[in-house]
């Protein structure tokens, strides 16, 4: 059994690095937009709330691969020259924003109504209530599912390979084309994903347990 050459291994690890970078970009982009969506769905006027809901339902009802193809072909159609990284980051951010938006909306709504009332009765304005009373509690509630969703983000970066971005799977495909040892290559890649995702999964479950105990 031929083991991968030193160069090939390094190439794979570079892909691994890009997987992490893309995940962080998607989380950042999707997080900002998701936060705006969550606030919109809880506090904005009805037409905006409905728009936000439609956006979320639309994105959640579309396969990520189709979304990525749409950004890959759509952005240039708008006159922007995009490379695969930008297209992937953009497409993933849109995808992530819908899911994080839903999770965070749930977290905002899970903060007991009585907290909002108490803050209101202390003459805090909306921004102050949000910043000092609602958000700190919502963040605590949101942390376990958000960490859990980060696992999904990392796994979903694998689809960026379909639009030519050289993250770990694409790197693996290229190595496979040279070595023709798909079993070893892809099992190795699976192991690397596992090394990234499993700790996050465990952490998310631990956070959930701690949260349950605190709130019994």
């Amino acid at each position: 059994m031929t083991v991968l050459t030193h160069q090939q291994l390094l190439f794979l690890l570079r892909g691994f690095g890009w997987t992490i970078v893309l995940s962080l970009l998607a989380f950042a982009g999707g997080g900002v937009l998701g936060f705006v969506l969550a606030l919109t769905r809880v506090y904005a006027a009805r037409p905006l709330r409905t728009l936000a809901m439609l956006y979320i339902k639309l994105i959640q009802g579309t396969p990520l691969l189709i979304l990525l193809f749409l950004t890959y072909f759509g952005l240039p159609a708008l006159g922007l020259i995009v490379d695969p990284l930008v297209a992937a980051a953009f497409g993933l951010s849109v995808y992530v924003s819908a899911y994080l938006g839903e999770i965070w909306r749930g977290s905002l709504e899970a903060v007991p109504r009585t907290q909002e009332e108490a803050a209101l009765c202390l003459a805090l304005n909306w921004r102050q209530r949000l910043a000092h009373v609602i958000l700190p509690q919502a963040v605590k509630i949101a942390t376990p599912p958000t960490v859990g969703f980060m696992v999904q983000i990392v796994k979903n970066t694998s689809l960026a390979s379909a639009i030519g971005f050289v993250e770990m799977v694409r790197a693996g495909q290229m190595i496979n084309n040279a070595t023709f040892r798909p079993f070893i290559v892809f099992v190795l890649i699976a192991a690397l994903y596992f090394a990234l995702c499993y700790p996050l999964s465990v952490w998310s479950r631990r956070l959930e347990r701690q949260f349950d105990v605190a709130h019994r």
Partner: protein
Amino acid sequence: MRYDLDFAAPLAHWPELLVGAATTLGLSVTATVLGFGLGVACALARTGRSAAAARAAGAYVEAIRNTPLLVQIFIIYFGLASVGIKLGVFTAAVMALVVNVGAYTAEIVRAGIESVPRSQLEAAQCLALGRWHVLRHVVLPPAIERVWPALTSQYVLLMLASSITSQISTEELTAIANRVQSDTFRSVETYLIVAAAYLLLSLLMRVLFWGVGSVAFPRRRRLGTPL
């Protein structure tokens, strides 16, 4: 900059797209049924008496849930081929989807099983019902009824994820879309049409699941209330 959106060109390929949609549906329904069976078996293993079976099922679930579906598909299609097991694209696609959704099903059904109160088991045992009868008639029916909404969502997600099998050239909707857009040069329009098609398929699947639920859970059909 391209202002003019031309939907007519890709829409003219509707017969191909329809076949693709049918393939997607076929893939999804097959994988759903088989994945459900696998998932229930694993959930039973994880809540059963054999610690070894529970550990094995647990390892399987963790392995699948922490690795991407795309990689799983490549391992099953290319990986197995390289060790002598050559599968057709449809078979490999179904296998990968079954193995994948089985793990998620296992977690959902396990939660359902654990939600059945111990007092129910006690009452059943005191009626002299054996282990298998207790599972089949007292534990699983309310467990699955309770998690039916979660299962429905999971299988709709599965249908959306089936698009990933296009990467091994399975002739489902996304693969057809790729062909159509390269033929017509109307990529944005093609993918928008296909996105709409997936939305319709999601709706169709939800209706199907609601229907199956009505037949399988007469209590729910008659009373309309959750368990």
